[in-house]
């Protein structure tokens, strides 16, 4: 089934023409409503009329996560406040979250794009769907929620946590589909086995998994343990949230809703656009967004756009390969973005700690764990001599990390001089998660 046959099966020529038209309008809109973009375009000696076709997109400036931080909170907002009906936030490196704002039409388009994803997974209005992304500032929960409602299915807003109760609901309500992170799906399978509930007792047939990288092996494991078909769901809050691209039943790449989000692949070093089939950094331009439109936003996700628009499912929308890495040092832990620099900013603010740290990421029972190693300054211990003093310090660091990262981290206090000085990128992160 295809949710929007007209848009999803449009010929390449029609699609390009529509994208060019929308891009022109978008550039005109940001030029007149976002001082940040007007200044950038003026510096490049560009006016909106210079952007006529979708090929002209390469003339436009890039936008980075740093630009979002520098313009915190409302600097990139294009619509008047009276038109904004939703605000989401994701974590930022310096404690400043990244704010995204939505107009009513943005929310409608989000639901429309999400409905396309769910329909491609085989969901219909007869289905009951559990949304087990976190609800709240994170875009995952509400994004998937509105999509299920758009299709006409019944949403079970389970969110995360209370896994046992959730599993009972999946069994007792005969829930048909679930949207969550792939690692949470494996955790569900684990707890189900502990409860002695066999997969034959549950009816789940669709899994919409995203918000973190996963592999073909994880897909097979989830499918065999939960007895469902696992589909990729890709998105990022800066662009919209989950719904940006999705797998169809052919599962050879994820179709991008390119009538709303125009993708490019660039070389992350030279910033030169790369052709189809070439591996590089994924860049998106929003073509219809009103609240916070972005031009050529650098996602830092590394992947490629698949050659050929001849997917057997009938959709003509371009497909992206699975994301195989990042062009920065961002970690995705339980679906939450974590930058080592965030941890650094917290540690630097704690006088009892030396400015050195080590992050260790692991996957225990299919759930990501983060342990932060910090060195105690010798001067701090001079005023104390009990274990309590050390556990109190660990608690203090853990509390401060939680308020900035939005996830719980184990804190390990280390003796002075025991951590290597962070030299060069990546030295202060050990990621033990094996994407099997």
């Amino acid at each position, binding site marked *: 089934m295809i949710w929007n046959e007209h848009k999803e099966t449009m010929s390449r020529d029609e699609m390009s023409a529509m994208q060019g038209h929308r891009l022109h309008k978008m550039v005109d809109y940001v030029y007149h409503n976002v001082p940040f973009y007007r200044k950038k375009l003026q510096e490049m000696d560009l006016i909106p009329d210079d952007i006529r076709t979708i090929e002209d997109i390469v003339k436009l400036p890039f936008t980075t996560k740093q630009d979002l931080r520098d313009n915190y909170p409302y600097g990139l907002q294009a619509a008047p406040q009276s038109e904004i009906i939703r605000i989401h936030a994701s974590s930022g490196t310096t404690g400043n979250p990244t704010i995204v704002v939505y107009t009513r039409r943005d929310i409608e388009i989000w639901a429309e794009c999400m409905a396309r994803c769910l329909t491609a997974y085989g969901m219909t209005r007869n289905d009951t769907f559990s949304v087990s992304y976190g609800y709240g500032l994170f875009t995952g929960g509400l994004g998937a929620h509105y999509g299920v409602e758009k299709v006409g299915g019944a949403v079970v807003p389970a969110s995360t946590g209370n896994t046992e109760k959730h599993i009972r609901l999946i069994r007792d309500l005969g829930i048909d589909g679930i949207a969550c992170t792939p690692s949470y799906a494996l955790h569900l399978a684990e707890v189900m086995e502990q409860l002695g509930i066999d997969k034959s007792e549950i009816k789940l047939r669709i899994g919409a998994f995203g918000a973190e990288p996963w592999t073909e092996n994880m897909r097979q494991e989830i499918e065999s343990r939960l007895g469902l078909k696992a589909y990729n769901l890709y998105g990022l809050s800066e662009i919209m949230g989950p719904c940006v691209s999705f797998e169809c039943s052919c599962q050879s790449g994820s179709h991008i809703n390119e009538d709303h989000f125009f993708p490019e692949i660039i070389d992350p070093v030279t910033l030169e656009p790369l052709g189809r089939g070439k591996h590089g950094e994924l860049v998106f331009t929003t073509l219809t967004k009103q609240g916070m439109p972005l031009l050529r936003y650098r996602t830092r996700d590394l992947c490629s756009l698949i050659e050929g628009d001849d997917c057997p499912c009938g959709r003509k929308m371009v497909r992206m390969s699975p994301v195989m890495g990042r062009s920065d040092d961002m970690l995705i832990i339980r679906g939450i973005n974590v930058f080592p620099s965030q941890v650094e900013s917290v540690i630097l603010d704690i006088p009892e700690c030396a400015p050195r740290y080590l992050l260790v990421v692991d996957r225990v029972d299919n759930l990501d764990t983060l342990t932060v190693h910090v060195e*105690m*300054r*010798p001067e*701090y*211990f*001079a*005023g*104390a*001599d*009990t*274990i309590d003093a*050390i*556990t109190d310090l660990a608690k203090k660091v853990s509390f401060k990390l939680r308020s900035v990262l939005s996830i719980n981290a184990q804190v*390990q*206090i*280390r*003796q*002075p*001089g*025991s951590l290597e000085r962070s030299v060069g990128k990546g030295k202060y992160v050990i990621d033990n998660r094996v994407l099997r």
Partner: protein
Amino acid sequence: MTVHQLSIFIENKAGTLVGLLRQLKEANISLIAISISDTMDYGICRIICSEPMKAYEFLKDAGVAVSLREVIAVELDDEPGRAADAIGILSDEGLSIAYMYSFRLTGKGVIVFRTDDNPRAIEALRRGGLTMIREDDLSKLV
């Protein structure tokens, strides 16, 4: 009426204790008593030694997380029940003990502990007729 004790924060990792002991050897410090309390990941090593001030300065300069504390060291006759008597005195005073360990000194037993109120503990122990070791007594030994 107290003796100085060094407390050193150490990680629960192979080689950390021997590293510390070698540093003390380098400073020509003799150990009189040593005790280690541990959690899963780290511990605190408490040491009574010759020249505690010198040892403290030496370790501090080497960047070690070390603290210097005054602790009470009570001498006990080598007979059953003497430790119970000593602790009973503190208990009757309503004083609690943060940590404690013991060693032997010239035929007598010595218990070392830190309470939440050292002056009160010393006063109570003295009233109970117990002898507390002074730093001088220790330095004579080494």
